[in-house]
């Protein structure tokens, strides 16, 4: 028995699916399901691996998560820019449910598709660039007769400098976001990634996503370069992309409110809040 994994939704057209779409999350060949002038790119995945419980278990396996997340991304990317990317882990019992989804929300899908046409997502992250305050304080201060006091004073002034530097960098990160949002049709911020996840020790102060029209892509990239130069020593700015517009492509099904709706029923509630 199989379930139907959903990758992307596009307008149905004469050129359904590029011939070179790679294998999907379960090494299956992606295919299409159509209804109401819309086309869904889907894959058949084995139910035992993609049942709710099994998925939950699998998501705790780093290799499985990485393999399937990358496979999902490869398919979405191959389908191309006219498609609305669907979030990872959207699984339906069968193709009929997908058709029902397309039919029930046809207008919403068309609106969402119009909103991303000719646009791509860019990611911009900014980290504080830190100069080691201890190192700066170490050298100065000649030896004196009250080394303990001098040490404490040095420590305190180093801490003050560090606080100030962080405040300054955070404000610069806000400026970066504002400048880039001005060039984007839409923008949003993901929560900053923790050092444990990035492997970068400096704090991330911005994890922005920007939906940018193709005609502005070059300008956007230039702006990122310019902002890096402008905020140079305090802030390190990193551009990623282009991405499929994942951050701007919620399904028009009220899924955005799903988190709240599921909250009542969720058996595995908030262990991290």
């Amino acid at each position: 028995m199989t379930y139907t994994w959903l990758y992307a939704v596009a307008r149905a057209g004469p050129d359904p699916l590029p011939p070179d779409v790679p294998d999907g999350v379960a090494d299956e060949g992606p295919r299409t399901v159509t209804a109401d002038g819309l086309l869904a790119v889907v894959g058949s995945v084995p139910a035992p691996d993609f049942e709710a419980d099994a998925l939950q278990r699998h998501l705790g396996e780093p290799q499985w998560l990485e393999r399937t997340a990358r496979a999902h991304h490869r398919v979405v990317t191959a389908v191309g820019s006219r498609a609305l990317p669907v979030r990872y882990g959207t699984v339906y019992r069968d193709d009929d449910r997908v058709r029902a989804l397309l039919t029930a929300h046809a207008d919403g899908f068309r609106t969402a598709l119009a909103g991303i046409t000719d646009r791509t997502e860019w990611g911009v992250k900014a980290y504080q660039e830190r100069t080691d305050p201890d190192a700066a304080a170490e050298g100065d201060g000649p030896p004196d007769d009250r080394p303990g006091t001098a040490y404490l004073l040095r420590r305190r002034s180093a801490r003050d400098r560090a606080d100030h530097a962080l405040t300054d960098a955070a404000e610069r990160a806000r400026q970066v976001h504002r400048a880039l949002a001005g060039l984007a049709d839409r923008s949003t911020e993901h929560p900053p990634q923790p050092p444990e996840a990035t492997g970068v020790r400096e704090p991330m102060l911005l994890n922005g996503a920007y939906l940018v029209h193709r005609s502005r892509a070059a300008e956007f990239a230039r702006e990122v370069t310019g902002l890096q130069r402008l905020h140079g020593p305090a802030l390190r700015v990193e551009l990623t992309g282009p991405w499929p517009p994942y951050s701007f492509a919620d399904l028009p099904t009220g899924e955005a409110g799903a988190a709240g709706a599921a909250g009542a029923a969720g058996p595995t509630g908030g262990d991290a809040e």
Partner: protein
Amino acid sequence: MSAYDLAPELRQRDVALVDLLDRVLAGGVVIAGEITLSIADVDLVRISLRALIASVRSLAADGPTADGPTAEGPVAGGGAAP
């Protein structure tokens, strides 16, 4: 042929998993909370992100850029990882 080929000089070598998860998992990897998977259009399953964060962390530590002292973190949260 896809539009993601534009501006090739800006392409990253490889998509960082953590950046990808920010985008493909609703809510992002770092929110202290859960992601929602929509299964079978009505049944919604909530999955604790603690295991995911542990996953990402261990992947980051194993990653190609092993130049940082990333593996020393004291955190060993809700480990699915052995």
